[in-house]
């Protein structure tokens, strides 16, 4: 079967357009967003994310690590995005709501220009299952994996 598929690939590849030449104008990076609810159950959260330096665009939002925030990707505010702001949030009904530091989202970013971005985050709110505000810390980590043979 594989041989058959290899043989016909050139035919179906007729669907391919001409290979485009211009060099990419941007690069991409994945950034983990972590929230530490300091021992309180984290049932809902909302943050704002920005690049202090560098030109950065959101090109995807991945769900959190396995557990309460893995079932779906967080939501973003499209109206804020239109104003060059990134606002994310989600809630969880999982019985095992996290109380310790957890990755709640992974941001897929497009970076334009040579400058290394510096990211800033801001906790808008965090809440327990009763809707009561709780204190929490937000942090970010680089989640991009180097391609084999590439230097990070």
């Amino acid at each position: 079967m594989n041989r058959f598929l290899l043989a016909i690939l050139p035919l179906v590849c007729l669907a391919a357009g001409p290979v485009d030449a211009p060099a990419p104008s941007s690069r991409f990076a994945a950034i983990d967003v972590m929230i530490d609810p300091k021992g309180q159950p984290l049932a809902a959260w909302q943050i704002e994310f920005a690049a202090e330096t560098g030109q950065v665009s959101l090109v995807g939002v991945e769900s959190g690590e396995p557990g309460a925030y893995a079932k779906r990707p967080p939501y973003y505010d499209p109206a804020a995005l239109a104003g060059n702001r990134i606002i994310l949030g989600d809630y969880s009904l999982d019985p095992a709501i996290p109380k310790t530091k957890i990755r709640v989202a992974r941001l897929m970013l497009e970076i334009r220009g040579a400058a290394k971005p510096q990211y800033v985050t801001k906790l808008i709110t965090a809440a327990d299952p009763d809707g009561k505000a709780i204190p929490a810390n937000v942090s970010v980590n680089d989640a991009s994996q180097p391609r084999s043979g590439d230097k990070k």
Partner: protein
Amino acid sequence: MTLARTLVLILLPLLAVALMSGCSAASAKSSPPAGYVAHAGISAIGPEAAAPAAVLSSLIPGQTTPSREEELWVVAKYEGDAQQPAANDEIPGSGALVARLPDQQNPVPVPLKHTDVRADIAGYIATVNVAQRYHNPFASKIEAVYVFPLPHNAAVNEFVMTIGDRKIRGIIRERAEAERIYTDAKRQGYVASLLTQERPNIFTQSVANIEPGKAIDIHITYFHTLAYGDGWYEWHFPMVVGPRFNPPDSSSGIGAVPRGAYGASGQKTEVQYLKPNERSGHDISLAIHLDAGVKIEQLDVPTHRTDSRVEDAHADVTLAASDAIPNKDFVLRYRVAGDRLKSGLFATRDEKGAGYFTLMLYPPQSLRNLPRKPLELVYVLDCSGSMDGRPIAQAKGAIRQALARMGPDDTFQIVKFSNDAQWMSDRPLAASRQNIAKALKYLDQPYGGGGTMMIEGIRKSLDFPHDESRLRFVCFLTDGFIGNEADILGEIHQRLGSSRIFSFGVGSSVNRYLLDHMAKMRRGAVAYLGLNQKPEPVMDAFFERISHPALTDVAIDWGGLRATDVFPAQIPDLFVGRPVIVTGRFTGNGIANIRVKGKVANENEVTPLTLNLDTAGAKNPALGPIWARMKIADLADRATWDASGNFTAPIKSLALEHNLMSAFTAFVAVDATRQTEGTHGTSVAVPVPVPDGVPYETTVAPK
């Protein structure tokens, strides 16, 4: 689910309160603003900020969206082509035959493996999730490209790419920017996906860098309202784009080419079709959960074999596994108890206090007791290649029935078009027995079989004087398989005058966007006729409607309701059996005493309605996107005939704000965690079968 809603209701006020405390922009500043923590490069952050905030409620997608079909007079529902399985039919219901030739034992390998559709219908609002599974059956990396249909009134506002267990939400962007991001990501070897809109009912899904043996799922969510008329709701899901005809010298149409003939059409968007003896491994599953709100009296799926269970106000319908070839529209109809909806009004306020509503207006009961005016009917018959065989036989059957229903004071005309157009007579003829006999002969004369120069048919049918003493309907009988919809709509708008269009869709996968909009342009009507359906009842329903006068010059006095941005901007005439949905924004509280005013045969008619605005809560957060979708559609319609206006900017702005697909916005998702080996994959189009009943030879090949 109840628990979920409860928690959301608990949390949303908290988050909304946080929002009200104010949130400042935080980009491109030399130092972090208050409340932010800067991260040198990528490092830890603190927050602690007590809270300017945002709008979690606006982050969570809504539950419903409206459609434009309510603005239309839906004369008849598609009755479909449900076929009994033949004993020797390997794939019952499929128009694509599977030849059992030695070299075609295996299906054509395509990068789209399966489509799963889940619809949740509440009242007349549907939430639909479409999951497409792409895979790579080849030995090297590919990009999959699939051109597919969705209902033209669908408000697509959620897009998620799934890779294994990882789910990545797509982001709405201006279309050009999304395309650039996708292209850059593809070139650099990232797995990425892009959803663009080619027509309101045709979309292109591209998925880049699918590695050999790997699968990627795309989840699309949209909302729309159901069509309603004569007690029946109708939900439909289109499964394949029919082969479109594009006028000579056009390049922005929808091309139809044989599998593998990339670029042969010269059109911007192109669909590759399987030959009649080919089939791909792509199949479809579909399940619907229906909560009608009131007892369901009758439920019908005329197009497919299904397993159905109805219990009081609820129903579950599942597409039978034996009918899983996606080559014709799926249609579900249901009738509820009573002759009216229990609730014609849906209203909501968002977290910022902005109100949105949809309201169903019913025609006055008194219309049923009044006789109609004499008619002038112009039948315009599409004789192009795609109508060959069963479709044109159905269309002719419909015209024969219509001629039989005409009265002695009525007049008629017949126009045929394919590469050009011709008419039966240079003026409308009285509907006498002799003239009808001539018309039947004229219908049976051979003609056409070529292209679909619908503009010629429009000119021929609208460019002669109208007898003002008669109510004039121009009845287009067509599958609508053309690629220049905007030109057609513009031409009709320019020439229609006081005539009304009755667009009559014939076939298994009709271009509903075109037919609905033709009818909507000037208070017209639309009906759909399947290939195995009897045309007589459809025409009878049409004549029943026009056998009574309409409520014309409809205007609404909104009373205490401060309504703005109401769509449709021009309220259509209200005919018997045809309610109209109006949607808009509002402010104010309390009881609103609305008065619907109009004229019946030059007599003023006023119908009072009472609305309680205090009952409008955050129960239906999708009404905002619904309203936005309606406004976008209204702007797009105007753009087809008003060249002086700038409609692009407002459409783009609305779509971005409400997270909606449009002609100028697109969803893009990139997995930036890793680059696949190599630069980019080879593009492979997903070939599709021609719709059931459509001849391949005269529509796809040769070109």
